[in-house]
């Protein structure tokens, strides 16, 4: 079975542009979460989606948005890119998206570089 897949693998953008990152969860998983990992830091929670509804949002500006589609895949959008948005963006999927912990499976990430 395929794990969590993310596209693209690498991306280079310039300041002010917008970017869309994509994630396909493990088959049967209904929840997707997004994390930003800046070099030298741990992953930082951005969003969690479950059944197309936002279940949680981290401390990120409104330039960051996401959505989940009926097939449970997800997109993360970042507008007006800043140099500080350069990071590895990780997507994770889990079976459910309830209030209790549910084991997450991470994709390999998308490396975004903003010049």
């Amino acid at each position, binding site marked *: 079975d395929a794990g*969590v897949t993310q596209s693209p693998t690498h991306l280079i953008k310039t300041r002010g542009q917008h970017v869309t990152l994509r994630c396909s969860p493990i088959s049967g998983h209904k*929840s997707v*979460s997004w*994390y930003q990992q800046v070099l*030298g*830091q*741990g*992953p*930082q*929670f951005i969003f*969690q989606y*479950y059944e197309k509804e936002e*279940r*949680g949002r*981290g401390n990120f500006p409104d330039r960051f948005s996401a959505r989940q589609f009926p097939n449970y895949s997800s997109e993360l959008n970042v507008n007006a890119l800043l140099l500080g948005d350069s990071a590895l963006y*990780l997507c*994770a999927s*889990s079976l459910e*998206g*309830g*209030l*209790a*912990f*549910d*084991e*997450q*499976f*991470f*994709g*390999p*990430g998308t490396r975004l570089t903003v010049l």
Partner: protein
Amino acid sequence: DQQVKQNSPSLSVQEGRISILNCDYTNSMFDYFLWYKKYPAEGPTFLISISSIKDKNEDGRFTVFLNKSAKHLSLHIVPSQPGDSAVYFCAALFPNTGNQFYFGTGTSLTVIP
């Protein structure tokens, strides 16, 4: 504001010896803790977890210890193997927040053959 901290960026251990990775947290409201392992070019993979109602959890070569009074947890790997060489992240959860993890900054473990 880093609520979960791993103060050792790197650790080197001889094969067969014990590896001890440490993690400190600042918020006593965290009630669930996890360790993830990450190889280069791969996403983190779940290793072991512990609830705040316990002080120890074992899974094969891996044991996690939780000291709530000190707000400290540690991961013990015995015996260490070269394949354990990776970056290890600890993570914490508040109650009823699903999978909104707070991760530490990671410790890079190198197991020397």
